[in-house]
Structures are given as structure tokens and as C-alpha cells.
């Protein structure tokens, strides 16, 4: 229905065309403003992904084939890499949740000012380079590092613990780096939960613990889910920390990709690994969405 029809019988619409063109101009302005971002994403995200996935269909000899993919699924070495990557990512995510949830809950109980100060402690490491933090952990965790030497001088242990250059070291380092990614969305969500809701639950007969599980926890789930997805997906593709703190003994997917290129110069195989990693990440998001029933949670 045209504008004129809508107002039929109401006489002429004054300035209708001026108002219409004003509206069009406004829309164009918004489109123009969003163009740089849209183009950037197109060029630096979608184009490389497209290029990467097409590369993965060429073998080392430059012929079109699915060889790169069949190798990923048949080789025990690759299978081992996937298993380790998942194990580490799950372990890091679980530890982050176990550390981060109580931390956030405790922060929400603090007065605003104290909570803001404490948040800085979470954020300062977040603002420091990953490389710096990883080397700092190396200093702390190595055989004659601060942790081992203090434990030995206190007589708690006889032999130095093997904390770095292995799985333990990788996980400790990764948890430290990933924790803010869980804490930030989770804390924001918890802070926004109306205290009256928990009070209402208790007032209507729930024990404090019951009110937590029946009201507070479900309301914190969107933030927890966002944090879990961030941590898990970032862990899947993490490189620096496992490379340095794992001491070559821990091979995650990103490291495998790196060595495939630098050692074997096999771009096709590396690309195939990258594509599989990307698809896995997307599949995980989809799966978690199904499990947590997120559409229901976000419907307010």
C-alpha cells in the first residue's frame, strides 16, 4: 500500500517527498558509515578463509585431491593431535569454570567499589602480552624456578616437581590466560541479576542454597555459556602457551599446523587442518547451543 493510499481521504500529505528523501539520505549515511567495517571483514576474514579452504584441496604435488583430508582421518599422529587438543581445551575450560564461577559470585557480593578494584586484578594480566605472561610462568614453574625452590626450602618436597615443559605447565599457563575470557561475560551477567529475585525466592520459602540453584544459577547461565564458548574455542586454536610451556612434549592442533608449514612446507595439509579446526569450532558452538538450550535462556 502506498503512503497516499494509507491516508486516503485525509487530504494531501504536506512535504511528503521532502520527508521521504530525508529518510533515504539518512539510510545512505548509515550504510556509508558501516561500509569500511563490512569491507574489512570481507577482505581479512572471508577471503582468507575461502583461499585457505581451496588450498586444502591441493596435494603436495599441486594436484586437485582430497588427500589432505583422508590423511587427517587415517593418520594416528593427527588423530592423537585432535584428542590432545580436545582434552587440553576441555580441561582448561573446566578449570576456568571451577575457578571463575566462585570468583565472580564472590565479586558480586562485594560493594561496588571493592569489586571494581578487584576486577582490575583480573584485567591487568589481560592487558599484558601473552608472550610476557607465558615466559613469566616459565620462570615460576621451571625445575629451579621460584615455586620449586620455595617448596624445597620449606621441606615440603625433596625433588623438584615437573611443572613446566609438559601438559601440567601448558594447562596452568592456558588457564591463567583464558580466565578473564570467562570472568568478564560471567561477571557482567551476574552483576545484572536483580538481588530482589533471590530475595523473593528466599522470602517465598527457598533455602539460600535452593534459591541459588533455582534462581541465581539459571540466570547466570547466559554469561557462563558465553564464557565457556570463548574459552573453549580460543583454547582449541591456542598456540603460544602450549608451544612454550609444553616444551615440545605437548602437540596441540595449532602447533601441528605451524610445523606442517615451517618444517614440511605443506600448505595444503596445513590448510586442511585449519579448515577442520574451524568446522570443529562451529560444530562446538552449535552443539553447546543445543545442550544449554540457549534460545530459551536469552528470551527475556
Amino acid at each position, binding site marked *: 500500500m502506498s503512503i497516499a493510499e494509507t491516508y486516503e481521504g485525509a487530504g494531501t500529505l504536506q512535504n511528503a517527498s521532502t520527508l521521504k528523501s530525508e529518510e533515504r539520505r539518512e539510510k545512505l549515511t548509515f550504510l556509508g558509515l558501516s561500509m569500511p567495517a563490512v569491507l574489512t571483514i570481507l577482505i581479512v576474514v572471508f577471503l582468507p578463509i575461502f583461499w585457505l579452504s581451496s588450498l586444502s584441496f591441493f596435494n603436495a604435488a599441486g594436484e586437485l585431491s582430497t588427500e589432505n583430508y583422508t590423511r587427517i582421518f587415517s593418520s594416528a599422529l593427527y588423530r592423537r593431535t585432535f584428542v590432545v587438543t580436545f582434552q587440553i581445551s576441555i580441561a582448561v575450560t573446566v578449570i576456568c569454570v571451577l575457578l571463575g564461577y566462585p570468583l565472580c559470585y564472590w565479586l558480586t557480593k562485594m560493594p561496588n567499589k571493592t569489586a571494581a578494584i578487584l576486577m582490575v586484578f583480573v584485567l591487568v594480566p589481560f592487558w599484558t602480552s601473552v608472550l610476557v605472561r607465558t615466559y613469566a610462568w616459565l620462570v615460576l614453574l621451571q625445575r629451579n624456578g621460584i615455586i620449586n625452590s620455595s617448596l624445597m626450602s620449606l621441606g615440603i618436597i625433596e625433588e623438584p616437581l615437573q611443572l613446566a615443559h609438559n601438559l601440567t605447565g601448558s594447562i596452568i599457563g592456558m588457564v591463567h590466560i583464558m580466565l578473564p575470557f570467562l570472568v568478564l561475560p560471567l561477571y557482567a551477567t551476574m552483576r545484572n541479576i536483580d538481588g530482589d*529475585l533471590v*530475595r*523473593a525466592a528466599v*522470602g517465598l*520459602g*527457598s533455602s539460600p542454597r535452593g534459591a541459588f540453584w533455582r534462581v541465581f544459577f539459571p540466570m547466570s547461565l547466559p554469561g557462563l555459556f558465553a564464557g565457556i564458548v570463548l574459552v573453549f574455542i580460543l583454547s582449541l586454536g591456542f598456540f603460544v602457551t602450549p608451544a612454550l610451556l609444553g616444551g615440545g612434549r605437548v602437540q596441540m592442533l595449532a602447533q601441528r599446523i605451524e610445523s606442517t608449514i615451517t618444517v614440511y612446507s605443506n600448505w595444503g595439509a596445513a590448510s586442511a587442518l585449519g579448515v577442520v579446526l574451524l568446522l570443529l569450532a562451529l560444530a562446538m558452538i552449535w552443539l553447546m547451543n543445543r545442550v544449554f538450550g540457549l534460545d530459551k535462556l536469552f528470551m*527475556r
Partner: protein
Amino acid sequence: MSPAAHSLPIDISNLCKAYGSVKALNDVSLNIAAGEFLTLLGPSGSGKTTLLMALAGFVRPDGGSIRFGEQEMIATPPHKRGLGMVFQSYALFPFMTVAENVAYPLKIRGVSKSDQKARAERALETVQLGGYGDRRITQLSGGQRQRVALARAMVFEPQIILMDEPLSALDKKLREHMQIELKALHEKLDATVVYVTHDQREALTMSDRIAVVNHGRIEQIATPERLYRQPHSFFVADFIGESISLPVSVANDTAQLGERVLKSNTPIALGSGGHRLIIRPELLEVTAGAVPDAANDLSGQVHDIIYQGDSVLVIVQHDSAGQINVRVPANRAGQTGLPSKGEQIGLALHPEDTIIVPEHVA
């Protein structure tokens, strides 16, 4: 309702709570009868919420006693007090449906699923929301949310229901409608209701008795009519209804406005800090001729006339007392004709309407 549920009296004595140097509750004692609708009325920051939250168990008082019936409750945790509660923000659980919200107190109490459903539906019908059970909270208007909160507070037939400014988020028309509805609902329920508001009109409309709270103390507790006609202090008189006040001198139980002795039927309340005469615009009478001897004469010259729809406000300039407002019902004004500006009119304040209060309660 079920025979098990019968309302309980509440006895509060010497309740104290300080936040730093602020005495939010300053030695509050209050007896609320079983089944009564009692309103805590006072300005913002006077301690109403603190008192209500102390009853609910969310604020731990510094000292005092709270008894529900015979039972001392002062140290009982909130979830064991068995209260129905309605919050200003409604505090409905956003991730549950209307029916799940209402059934929540029943679920906690281990009521069977089918019973939960039936009782929740019945409670929703009581607040005129029958058939709304499957809706999401977000799909409801403010007034409907308010009703859901009410249904949730009463579904388990609590003996005591607490409400903290439950209507303040609604617009005026809906608020006035809900006031009447809440009052009717209270008559159906067998529960003692403690209601908090800062709106004096709301308090007058709904309550059996009103406790006026000021600076953490109860200034006066009385029925709406008594509170209106016989306030104990200037604070109460000023807070409730519309009025102007004039300083008077009191000696030997008689009050004097300037040179003139005031005729009053009510005994002058004790207190400190001087006395004031309270003049409510609607209690003044415009006399055709001279003011009769039995009444107090406040005659003066008409300064202004303001039409307000349901009534007309006449502003009279009195020689010594300044401006006095008189409210004339619009219908009567229409029949007898209004005075005109500058005209000299007779104003009578009858002895039974002559309210003299001390500045502060004793």
C-alpha cells in the same frame, strides 16, 4: 480458603537498627492484629523498607523482638518465616512462565505437580489472570506483572503477606484501580497484610490502620479517619491530606490565633516546640452572611479562584493569618454561584474541624 490457614497477629517491640549513625529503626513498637491491613506510611528514607525487611528476616536488627502469634521470630532465617512477599520491582523470575512463577512457593513446599497446577491456576483466577499461565513474563504489562506477583505471594495461603510499594511503578489510573482490587482481595484472604507506601492517599484508601513512620520512629498509628481528623503532630497533619498551618499559642488547654481564642472540640495533643493550627481546605465553610458565633471566624477577601475540575479552590486573604485555601465542590459552586475576586466572604472553621497539633510528638 483451607482451614489450616488463619491469619496471625504481629507483635513488634523495641526494634532497633542503625546504619552507621543513621537510626533506620529507632525503638519501634507496634502491634498488628490478626487479619488486619496495616500500612507503613512515611517519606522516603524514613525506615519503612528497613522495618518490612526486618519482619521478612532480610535485615538483622540490632535488638528488639518480633513475634508472629506466640512465636518469637527475631532470629528465624527468612525462608522459615512462611511469609508471602510482593516487591516493588515485582521480582518475577524471567526464565519461568507465569504459572511456574506462581507455583514456585508450592514447588518449594513439595506440593504435588497436579496440585501445583490447580492451585496456581486458582490463584491466577483470583487476580483475574485465569488462562495466562503459559505466558512469559515479558509478554505481560506492568499491571499484569503486579497481579502475578500478588498471585505468587498468596498461592500458598500464607498467614502474613508483606508488600513494599507494590503499586508505585504503575500509572495513576491503574494504581487507583489496583488499590481497590487489593483491598477487596484482602477481604477474601485470611491473612495479615503489612503494606508499605509513601503515598498518603493510597494509605487512606486501603488500610484498616496506618502507622506513620518518620526518622525511624512511629509518629502515630490510627485508622485513616482518625489520622486525618486527629493527627498527633504537625508532621502527621502535614504529611496526610492537604493543609496549611498557622502558628498558635497554647496556654491552659486553650489555643489562641493572634488575639483570638480558638474554639476546638478535640483535646490539644501534648508535645514540644510550639503548636500549630491545621486548616484543611475542604473543612472550611463559606458562609452566606456573618460567621456564626459557635465557629472560628477566618473571613477575608477573595484573592484568587482556581478551577480544578472536580472542585474549585478559593484563595482568601486573611488580615493577620495570610492566605487561606478553601475548597468548594464544583457542583455546589455551580448552584450557588462563586464569589468573585476582591469580594469579602465569610469563612467558618467549626470547632470539630479545628485541629491543633504540637510541632513534635511528646
